């Protein structure tokens, strides 16, 4: 956690870049709310869900790059010579993702609300929103750990960034699912789990308490966490070859 907070080069882009995209999208697509059936009259509120997922994508890079550096410098060797267990090592590395997730969620929400976004579910909704954001950030962070352990290279981890961004763009990022007119795009967005992460955030922002959407959002985060942690633990065993 300490070292995450000591790297402005990791923190600043993760805070600024999603806010910049939010400003561009909510300004440029403002008239989209005129479409019949659009669920809110504030495109800013609709688009505010996106930074939370973008922030989680940054977590893949940050946790992965940190661990890859540990491998490259031999710091992981030092840890391997101590009685530290693999699961404890991975959890320690994810503590940085928790810190970054909290900071990101607080920043995005504050900036969004100051800019005029709604939060229908109030203070309780804000807490759930932050919890969801941190869950996704940590879950995505495990994918970064896995990539680092498999490749041992910070560059390889960073090359994943565009791949994850593609998943964001082929989701219901810009429009609700039912307003996407192009059949193939709607089919892809429907199959894309990122869509349901966005819908969970949107439910808190402007739809009110939707337990189904929230369960799906948290469920996807949990599933990614389980898959990522299992894969990272397996990769750590291979990487941390100690008798």
């Amino acid at each position, binding site marked *: 956690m*300490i070292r995450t907070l000591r790297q402005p080069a990791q923190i600043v882009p993760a805070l600024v870049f999603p806010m910049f995209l939010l400003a561009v999208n909510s300004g440029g697509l403002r008239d989209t709310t005129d479409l019949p059936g659009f669920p809110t009259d504030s495109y800013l509120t609709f688009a505010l869900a996106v930074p939370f997922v973008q922030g989680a994508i940054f977590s893949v890079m940050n946790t992965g790059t940190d661990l890859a*550096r540990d491998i490259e410098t031999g710091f*992981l*060797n030092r840890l*391997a*010579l101590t*009685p530290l267990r693999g699961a404890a090592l991975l959890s320690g590395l994810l503590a940085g993702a928790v810190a970054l997730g909290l900071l990101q969620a607080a920043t995005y929400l504050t900036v969004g609300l100051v800019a005029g976004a709604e939060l229908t579910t109030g203070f309780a909704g804000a807490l759930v929103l932050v919890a969801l954001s941190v869950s996704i950030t940590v879950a995505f962070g495990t994918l970064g750990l896995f990539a680092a352990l498999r490749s041992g290279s910070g560059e390889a981890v960073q090359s994943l960034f565009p791949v994850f961004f593609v998943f964001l763009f082929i989701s219901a990022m810009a429009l609700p699912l039912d307003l996407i007119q192009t059949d193939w795009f709607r089919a892809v967005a429907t199959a894309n789990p990122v869509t349901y992460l966005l819908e969970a955030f949107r439910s808190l922002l402007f739809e009110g308490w939707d337990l189904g959407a929230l369960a799906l959002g948290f469920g996807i985060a949990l599933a990614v966490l389980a898959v990522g942690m299992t894969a990272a633990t397996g990769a750590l065993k291979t990487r941390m070859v*100690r008798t």
Partner: protein
Amino acid sequence: MATTGQGGSGIEVEGLVREFKNGPRAVDGIDLQVAAGEIYGFLGPNGAGKSTTVLMLTTLLPPTAGTARVAGFDIVAEGPLVRSSIGAALQEAALDPLLSAREHMRLQTALHGLGKGERQARGQELLERVGLSQAADRRVGGYSGGMKRRLDLALALAHRPRILFLDEPTTGLDIQSRTALWEEVSRLAVDEGVTVFLTTQYLEEADALAGRVGIIDHGRIVAEGTPAALKAEIGRPTVEAVPQEPADRDRLAAVLERFGASAAASPRAAAARLDGGESQLAEVVRALDSEGIAIETLQLHTPSLDDVFLAKTGRSLEGAGDAEEPGAEAEAVGAT
């Protein structure tokens, strides 16, 4: 805290082999014994198998064949017990550039299970011992190579190990930093009885530090003994002289041959191995003077560990290195 098994604080290795996929045997059946409190120098060029051996003995790389006991514990069956008995500073100083020396020490002592009260005292003691107490709160990313190496050594000692593995600890350091590290390693062995297994490609390091030296080449130990015994084994000192007048070279060679068999020399010089050892040098000078041969330079070469390496392998240690040890980096934990 460090523990030791029935074998005490020594190292016993029998037929240790490490073979990498699609590669040669990086370590090809080595046998060695290091007694408690001894400094053992493992000397060889790059790619000889030194680091692979250290990775196996520190449990970071499973051997393909053979056995080894470190501090009395089997490196394969009793890995955790081996790790609790040893400290290791591997080839690159394994530090996080974002953390300070004090934070490294806190983390290391905590991971080794030292009590909360003891952590701070032990950390401070070690930082003072390696001369880093003034810089302890600075991030190590800004440290010099020597400071990083000293911190690496201090971290390896955090849990008071009885055996210390140092993999090329002074590579890339200036002579001042190197000497300071040598003094600390000697002190550990002499004052605290720590067993030190030291790999190096520096002849003078093995000569200055090690009680015994094992010379490794292509994964095999080609010679082993005290530096003095190894040097004595390969022969006598050589005297080499260059005459002021090139025409005197043959006469010079004839004079030198009175004291021993001729030896290889530079084109303008003549050389001979002194049958009677270094003490004959004065007689050589008197003989040259009485023959009226004016001398431009006269040098006495005592055998070095490089001569030992040359005698055993047919190559000089300087520049004898292969590429990196095959697979060692890939298969261990980012093995350095």
